[in-house]
């Protein structure tokens, strides 16, 4: 498998504060990769470095090409990010949010994709004319994911999708993501504190600690590692 996304020695942060130190990370086509770590370990910052929301040094490559340095160009290159807190357009309706996901597409299949995601997430169809801001957290999370998928991304980035969701909804969401990966070949990089769930659908995982990658390997192996289990999995 050749790497779809690869970070080599990526260092970056906010202004004078360096958060990420020398990050090496790879995601292959068709994989689900999980990034684990405590609060403040630099998980969100890693995603922001990938999409170009912060300045970085080091090499960021996507599908063999260097990644652009602004979020709008990264999106057009084929990376969809579902930000923490979902980032839906609160005043706009569900359908407008979804159509915006495809704003940069030139092909004629937008309508068909819209129907497709309505079938995958039937709740969104029920709420198609409702302002996104008035929906529940779980529905907004589905909307944010569906919006990112309307981009037809080659890689989907998810930032703490379980945040603020009830456990049952979170489980449903991860099962959905696992299915999308198996059935549609969706490549996913997910940052998550709820490590158990994430590792269930993940193939490989990285562990971040204060901006450095301290462990990585197949998901099963990390689940079997006592030190990591105690620190991040809580059992």
């Amino acid at each position, binding site marked *: 498998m050749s790497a779809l996304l690869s970070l080599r020695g990526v260092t970056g942060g906010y202004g004078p504060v360096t958060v990420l130190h020398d990050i090496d990370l790879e995601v292959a086509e068709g994989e689900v990769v999980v990034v684990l770590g405590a609060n403040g370990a630099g998980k969100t910052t890693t995603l922001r470095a990938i*999409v170009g*929301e912060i300045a970085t040094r080091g090499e960021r490559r996507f599908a063999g090409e260097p990644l652009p340095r*602004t*979020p*709008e*160009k990264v*999106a*057009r290159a084929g990376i*969809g*990010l579902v*930000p923490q*807190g979902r*980032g*839906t*357009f*609160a*005043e*706009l309706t569900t359908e*407008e949010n979804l*159509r*915006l*996901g495809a*704003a*940069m597409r030139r092909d004629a299949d937008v309508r068909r994709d819209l129907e497709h995601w309505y079938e995958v997430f039937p709740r969104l169809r029920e709420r198609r004319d409702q302002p996104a*801001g*008035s*929906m*529940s*957290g779980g529905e*907004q999370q589905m909307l944010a994911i569906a*919006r*990112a998928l*309307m*981009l037809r991304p080659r890689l989907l980035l998810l930032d703490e999708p379980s945040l*603020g969701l009830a456990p049952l909804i979170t489980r449903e969401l991860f099962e959905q993501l696992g299915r999308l990966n198996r059935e549609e070949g969706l490549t996913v990089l997910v940052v998550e504190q709820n490590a158990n769930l994430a590792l269930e659908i993940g193939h490989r995982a990285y562990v971040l600690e204060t901006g450095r990658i301290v462990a990585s390997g197949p998901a099963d192996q990390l689940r079997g590692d006592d030190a990591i289990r105690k620190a991040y999995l809580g059992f």
Partner: protein
Amino acid sequence: MELFFRYLLNGIGNGAVYALVALALVLIFRSTGLLNLAQGEMALFSTYFAWKLTDLGLAIVPTIAIAVVASMFGGALIERTLIRPVHGPDKSPLNVLIVMLGLFLGLNALAQLIFSDDAEPMPKPWPTVASPGDPVGRNARFAEVGGVPISWSVVALLLSLIVLAGLLYLLFQRTKLGLMLRAAASNPASARLVGINSSNMLMLGWALAAGLGAVAGVLAAADRGSVNPGLMAVVLVYAFAAAALGGFDSPIGAVVGAMIVAIAEAMTIGYVKALSTIELVVPFGLILLVLLVRPTGLFGRKVVERV
């Protein structure tokens, strides 16, 4: 009763001008959260520019078209060179306030310096009748209903407002570009994540606002027969009042607010002789009342977000 309708028509004519400027204010407020203090003087500059074109012999209708397009470029230029460097979530709102104040004073002075510091005649883009001593003529009568003459100026002003507001509605609600503009206004960071260049959308917002201002300025000057350096400062005050009344984030509110403010102004001038020199008091009394009861304005929305 006949007098009442006369005052009402006066109010509606002025209301159309206030509404255009208020729409421009709402446009910029919704996309940037800024109250553009320089909106009136940007329009004044456009209006003097238009006068210069007519002075050079161009007819008024093509003049308006050229002035609108030029003003849109000017508005975009102002956003890109003067506003963008000082405005942002990590910068003090005072910076951009001072830049806008500078624009307010600077554009007025610049218009006087480049074009004219005097009142200049503005031809009317509607039928007129010749009148001695008046270079552009008086507004012709459109119709007479029950003894009340309806001037062409009121009809033309109202029509312009309806057409422009309708076009804006179509742009924002029915086109992909409009959807992208609304997305960038709603959440610029998320808009970038779906590939929209949010900065360009902001620039486009300023361009549209400047274009609207140009129409408002030229029509206001044409209605009065001339443009003078103080023309738009007063209009801006009423437009601000209109937007505050209707809700700064609501285009419909801007139009309705403008009509209420302008009609209140006209009635005050007409009926309350004691207040006729300080007619600003009445609209502001209204605003105070509305804002006490509904701080978001008549049509403003308080966005309740569930997390």
